[in-house]
């Protein structure tokens, strides 16, 4: 009877309060993670629709469906959306939902900060998309090269929406990364020493560290651009002693690590799925973890390969060429490890593994064309052609979106408690796999035939017509594949088979609790004695740590950095509207900056300071 009473107490302590205001006050990492997933997926659909409109324009040569301004806004927003508003946040969504569960914790280290990052992400997305309402979406590409993005060449407000929106989003991404780092280092299950960390956790950790080092370059670049545009500074203006190329260095110092910021967590999903469905532990676990770290480090030494055609001296070209070549090694390590895991196991062909295997094929192709770009003269000839568009879609769609779908099929049952239809899931996979290759494989050819990227139309007679039409057909097939996923998901909510705690016989701790998990995640805090806790045969899982809350206080376990030895009981915050209010104040501040309303900026800035004060004010949980 005592156990039941403990459970009721846990429910009472962890349920959202007040319930009526749940959307605005909750700090539960699962609710926040789910919101991230849904919001980012909606942005994915928006970016996908933008892509389909573009492909319709490009289906035929000299097509006049779109005027160039609309086309340029669409491709700029497609890139900005997919990179900033879909890929990074949806992986934050998985991270938010899964990481604390995988670590055996009851929440992230900073739950209120977690709520705050979601709201800032949402507001910055709406901020950038609001530009469509006045017909002036950003049109400088997702890379916004100066001086084209300067006031003289782009006088409209589109680039201001873009630059300010990304600075605002950067606050969210940075805060989220800090939260991941601290959570992974400090709230692990007892016994989850560094050598037993799940690979997904490794990937999230390296990603978060890369964010911390890379993002300041983008934020700085955007702020300098805003100063140039609105206050007459000349950072990027060569006529006044500035440098047009400075922007490219700052942008790609962020931009290349950002590729890995998107790619690494996706790879972490694959490293979760492959061993589970191969029914054996990951081959070369340590090497894969090391490869992840190596990738993160090397990703900071390759940014110049985006600038091979800018007229740099051969010595710089050689150095960045060789680092770009070397970054293929950790990728090769992982591919060999995944395939060997499948080879030596007994693969069970469920949808998540299909998407993971599809990923291996597509990422392999994208990785190999990536190595080709490290061959400098080839890069100088082929860069900025459609071959590049093919290459990075194989890396980012094949390398990140396919794992994201693997992750959705794998973890959504944990979140909803319902399984999706597996046979329909496989149809979903083949539609996407076929559609993807039909869209992007011909782009390699048309790029080699000399078709440059970012053109709203092209002349006939250069051998580009047939491939472009095929690409458009493929894009719509890919779109049908995405719709199939949505249908499967909605169907599963109504009629899906109940998932149970562990439908996949998986190895990590998120499967040790009910689907969906209770607000408090784990009734008793799990302990870990190996890399695959649910496959290990030891009986320590049930030790009643923190089974009974003290004094109606939310608690999780703080553990030591390397060995995950329990150190202290961490008091977790109550639900609060403050993160929402602070994010709102910041959004208003950025609207003020956009409209150049000093009074509004001052007001919102002051309000933000007051809210931060209230946030930090010592409450009763701090003394408990």
């Amino acid at each position, binding site marked *: 009877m005592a156990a039941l009473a403990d459970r009721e107490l846990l429910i009472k302590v962890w349920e959202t309060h007040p319930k009526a205001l749940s959307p605005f006050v909750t700090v539960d990492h699962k609710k926040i993670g789910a919101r991230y997933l849904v919001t980012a997926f909606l942005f994915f659909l928006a970016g996908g629709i933008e892509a389909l409109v573009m492909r319709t324009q490009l289906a035929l040569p000299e097509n006049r469906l779109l005027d160039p301004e609309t086309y340029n806004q669409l491709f700029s927003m497609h890139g900005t959306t997919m990179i900033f508003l879909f890929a990074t946040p949806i992986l934050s969504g998985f991270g938010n939902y899964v990481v604390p569960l995988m670590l055996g914790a009851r929440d992230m280290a900073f739950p209120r900060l977690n709520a705050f990052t979601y709201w800032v992400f949402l507001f910055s997305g709406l901020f950038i998309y609001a530009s469509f309402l006045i017909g002036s979406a950003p049109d400088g590409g997702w890379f916004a090269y100066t001086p084209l993005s300067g006031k003289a060449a782009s006088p409209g407000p589109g680039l201001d929406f873009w630059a300010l929106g990304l600075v605002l989003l950067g606050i969210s991404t940075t805060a989220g990364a800090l939260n991941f780092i601290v959570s992974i280092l400090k709230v692990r299950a007892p016994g989850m020493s560094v050598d037993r960390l799940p690979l997904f956790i490794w990937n999230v950790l390296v990603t978060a560290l890369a964010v911390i080092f890379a993002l300041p370059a983008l934020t700085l670049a955007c702020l300098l651009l805003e100063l140039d545009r609105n206050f007459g500074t000349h950072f990027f203006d060569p006529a006044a002693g500035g440098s047009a190329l400075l922007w490219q260095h700052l942008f790609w110092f962020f931009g290349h690590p950002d590729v890995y910021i998107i790619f690494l967590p996706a790879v972490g999903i694959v490293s979760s799925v492959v061993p589970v469905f191969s029914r054996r532990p990951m081959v070369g676990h340590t090497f894969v973890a090391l490869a992840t770290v190596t990738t993160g480090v090397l990703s900071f030494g390759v940014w110049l390969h985006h600038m091979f055609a800018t007229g740099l001296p051969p010595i710089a070209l050689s150095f960045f060429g060789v680092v770009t070549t070397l970054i293929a090694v950790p990728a090769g390590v992982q591919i060999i490890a995944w395939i060997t895991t499948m080879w030596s*196991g007994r693969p069970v062909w469920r949808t998540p593994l299909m998407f993971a295997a599809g990923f291996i094929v597509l990422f392999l192709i994208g990785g190999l064309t990536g190595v080709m770009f490290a061959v400098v003269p080839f890069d100088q000839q082929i860069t900025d052609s459609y071959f590049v568009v093919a290459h990075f879609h194989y890396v980012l769609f094949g390398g990140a979106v396919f794992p994201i779908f693997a992750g959705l099929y794998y973890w959504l049952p944990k979140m909803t408690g319902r399984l999706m239809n597996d046979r329909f899931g496989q149809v979903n996979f083949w539609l996407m796999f076929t559609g993807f290759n039909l869209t992007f494989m011909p782009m390699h050819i048309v790029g080699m035939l000399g078709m440059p990227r970012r053109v709203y139309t092209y002349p006939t007679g250069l051998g580009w017509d047939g491939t472009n039409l095929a690409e458009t057909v493929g894009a719509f097939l890919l779109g049908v594949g995405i719709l199939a996923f949505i249908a499967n998901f909605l169907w599963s909510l109504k009629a899906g088979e109940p998932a149970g705690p562990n439908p996949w016989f998986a190895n990590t701790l998120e499967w040790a609790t009910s689907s969906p998990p209770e607000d408090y995640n784990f009734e008793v805090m799990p302990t870990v004695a190996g890399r695959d806790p649910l496959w290990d045969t030891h009986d320590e899982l049930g030790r009643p740590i923190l089974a009974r809350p003290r004094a109606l206080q939310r608690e999780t376990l703080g553990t030591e950095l390397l060995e995950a030895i329990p150190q202290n009981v961490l008091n977790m915050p109550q639900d609060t509207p403050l993160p929402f209010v602070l994010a709102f104040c910041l959004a208003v501040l950025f609207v003020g900056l956009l409209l150049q309303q000093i009074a509004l900026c001052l007001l919102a800035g002051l309000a933000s300071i007051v809210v931060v004060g209230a946030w930090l004010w010592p409450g009763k949980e701090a003394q408990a």
Partner: protein
Amino acid sequence: MSQSTLAPAGPAAERIATLTWLITGLAAAVMLAVLAYLAVAILRRRGLEDEPRAVNGAFVVGVFGVGLPLAILLVTFGFALNALAALVYPPSATRLTVEVIGHEWWWEVRYPGHENAITANEVHIPSGEPVQVRLSSDDVIHSFWVPQLQAKMDVIPGRANRTWLQADQPGTYRGQCAEYCGLQHAHMSLLVVAEPPDQFERWLAAQSRPAGPPQGQAARGLQAFAASGCLACHTIRFGGDSPGGKIGPDLTHLASRQMIAAGTLPNNPAGLAEWIADAQFVKPGNKMPAMHPDPEQLRDLLALLQSLS
């Protein structure tokens, strides 16, 4: 006409095309090997064994994940360095320098040492010898790319970039701006016309001369040209002091060019008429307004423009 990197017509593009086939072949071989392994991993017949096969992870990953890829990558990078060194400088000394200036959205072409030879969207070079190209930009970043002859080189304001071109045979090679430069990035192409050296010299001499004074209908065309405000942007040099703007291409020898509007329309009466009537329909956002001349004016203007050989 072609813009294909796989139809090289000069030593630089040829070297890169060979390199392209080589690394494409290597990449394809690696891809097939890995896909074969993946296929075996998927299709391998498994007995009734319960336990997964034991694998020496360190060995497999060390040999096939690190050692072998590293060897292939180093060889590939050797090819890269070799080609890079070979392409920095032209194979022989150059006699001629061409200056190409990027504008939103057309190319201005000049010949240093021949100050009166100014043309647009058409680079003439002698065939069979390398030519220096100096690149500069009047506004934003463009990229000079003639795939059949040479890899691209960005055209960056405030930076003096250079490249070189060599066409082995006489011919016309299409090129296009390869760096996104705003609204009409799609319509910013150019032609490189390689001619036998003596023919090129005659062309350069002709371009250096002023335009002949217009006669008859062409003379009326010149009045219409001035009255319509064309001189605000365009210059026609008849010798002596010729007024005119620098925003659009110099038209002194317009009739000698194959295309107009940076490769958008053929340079014939129909193309010219379409362009003059409504340049904003043909190339939305470009800096030439729609003129909508009356039919007689248009005929006079066409007579003028076609006289500028």
